[in-house]
């Protein structure tokens, strides 16, 4: 006869409520693990999705994700000339926040090197890739935009032609893909007055410099658009992405580019390392510590619940001892209930999580190894939690029945 099951059958309401409480705790533990994994995934998703073999960035920086990187757009052509480089595309990416339908809308504006790159590689869940050089965009569903929806950014209106799911930037903001020129237009969009003021300031700077005095044309053009001053406009791109030709030794290409004094080159693995080691490591440690605390709290709460359940049965345990029950019978009663609460709590936590986690604003990634690890932890804390109850039961003298 299984005494643990008999007790549960007789006190099913109490058992269900206890298990639900434990399951909610375990769901939080599971969720913390998922948030941690989500953080890592979000941090590395962009680098992994783009799939560039090498990244050329501003010299002595660890850009374009871990820190700011600015470089001239012409670098794209210089990189393309290196032996072994199959494709080189400019990387334009920046985060914007605009008001939309009365709510803040944060998105990572990502440039696609039109016409070579129209976003065919982007994992779409609806719609299509870009078909024209301007005024089309692919948005992640987390942004809340619908297919065909029109969105004003800067001075232009963009139409959502494709949708992705779970494609976010390192900070968890949804990605929106535009052609590079559109992305730059959004990035450098300024009000008319700001442009006019900048042109006046630029003219004043040119007049004060030797170059302005020697080259009168510069003074003339300083009052016009930046593109009229090819030598003076600010750096336009964040990085250049490289795809290597098949069979090419990456180290050799890296060595070539590393010889240039104005840039630094990194592999994809190095970029991921910067993201995880630099940007995510503190959050990762914080979540890890919080997770450990939650596990300790869960263990204590479980131990108290099992202890209370044991106290409720202490007279019956004394009676069982009086009848000559072996310690194994009594230990089994407590341990089996603890394991059952742990196992059912874990299962319920997983089930509830499948409904709750998708509603979280950032990705919650539950992986099989994490689930297995948590199952082992739950097994461990169930045994640990039952020890207090078992200890109490072992202390009870059979003559307590006579009291």
């Amino acid at each position, binding site marked *: *006869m299984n*005494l643990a099951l*008999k*007790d549960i*059958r*007789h*006190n099913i309401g109490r058992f269900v409520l206890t298990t639900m409480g434990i399951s909610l705790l375990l769901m939080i533990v599971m969720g913390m693990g998922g948030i941690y994994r989500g953080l890592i995934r979000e941090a590395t998703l962009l680098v992994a999705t783009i799939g560039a073999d090498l990244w050329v960035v501003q010299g002595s920086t660890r850009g374009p994700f871990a820190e700011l990187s600015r470089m001239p757009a012409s670098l794209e052509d210089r990189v393309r000339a290196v032996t072994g480089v199959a494709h080189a595309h400019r990387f334009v990416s920046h985060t914007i926040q605009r008001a939309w339908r009365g709510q803040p809308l944060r998105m990572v504006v990502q440039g696609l090197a039109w016409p070579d790159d129209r976003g065919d590689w982007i994992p779409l869940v609806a719609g299509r890739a870009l078909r024209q050089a301007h005024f089309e965009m692919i948005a992640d569903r987390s942004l809340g935009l619908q297919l065909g929806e029109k969105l004003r950014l800067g001075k232009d209106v963009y139409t959502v032609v494709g949708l992705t799911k779970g494609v976010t930037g390192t900070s968890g903001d949804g990605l929106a893909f535009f052609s590079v020129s559109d992305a730059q237009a959004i990035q450098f969009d300024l009000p008319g007055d700001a442009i006019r003021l900048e042109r006046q300031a630029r003219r004043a700077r040119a007049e004060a410099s030797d170059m302005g005095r020697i080259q009168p044309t510069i003074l003339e053009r300083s009052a016009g658009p930046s593109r009229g001053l090819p030598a003076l406009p600010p750096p336009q791109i964040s990085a250049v992405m490289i795809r290597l030709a098949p069979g090419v030794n990456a180290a050799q290409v890296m060595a070539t580019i590393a010889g240039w004094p104005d840039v630094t080159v990194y592999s994809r693995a190095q970029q991921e390392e910067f993201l995880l080691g630099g940007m995510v490591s503190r959050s990762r440690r914080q979540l890890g510590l919080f997770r450990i605390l939650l596990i300790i709290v869960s263990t204590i709460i479980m131990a108290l619940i099992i202890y209370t359940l044991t106290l409720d049965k202490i*007279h*019956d345990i004394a*009676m*069982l*001892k*009086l*009848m*000559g*029950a*072996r310690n194994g*019978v009594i230990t089994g009663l407590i341990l089996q209930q603890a394991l059952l609460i742990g196992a059912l709590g874990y299962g319920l936590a997983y089930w509830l999580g499948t409904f709750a986690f998708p509603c979280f604003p950032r990705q919650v990634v539950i992986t099989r190894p994490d689930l297995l690890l948590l199952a082992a932890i739950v097994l461990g804390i169930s045994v640990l939690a039952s020890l207090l109850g078992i200890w109490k039961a072992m202390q009870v*003298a*059979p*003559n307590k*029945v*006579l009291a």
Partner: protein
Amino acid sequence: MNSAATPAMPAVETFGLTKVYGAGNTEVVALKDVTLRVARGEVVALLGPSGAGKSTLLSAIGLINPPTAGRIVLGGQLVLDGARALVNLRAYRRTQIGFVFHKANLIPFLTALENVQIAMEINDLAARPARRRAMALLDYLGVSDRAAHYPDALSGGQQQRVAVARALANEPRLILADEPTAALDSHRGRQVMELFRKVAHERQAAVIVVTHDHRALDVFDRTYEMEDGQLRPAPAPPQ
């Protein structure tokens, strides 16, 4: 029914049992040199006022509260020499002794049948035969129709009958009952006492009953009185 005759086959014997609680100024002598011999098939009553040491004697004989000094012999085997156990007391309780208390002390999450069955399963009997025998015992005690009910759905008398069935589960040599009729009316109380007599005679178990109930003394083969930890034969009741 009182008798001075003692059957030849002792189920339990005690020699000079002494139990002392505390020490120095707080010392209390609960049992003083108690010697008792009860044979199989015999029903013995222990009478006496509260604090006389009846329950202490019962718990000492029941191997749950060892004496400070003296010896206890069960079925011819010395099991306790003072506080020193010479056998596995828990195993001995499991196989040789049945207990009944003034409260039935049934396990609340087990049905009447399961309460009896568990006593046998604890003694390594397989579930199916244990269930069959438990049902037979409940039938023997007249409560088989309540087998599937939980203790809180049974009357006091029914609970006590189930407790007796549980005490009989492993066919013990010795049944110890501590005021088993305290919670029952006189009619039910007498029924339970007669049940002990029936069990003792039919199943050849020695039964020691601690009781305050003087109305059912005719049921017992012998009666003893305890006072200040000392045991002596009770005087014969007036005819």
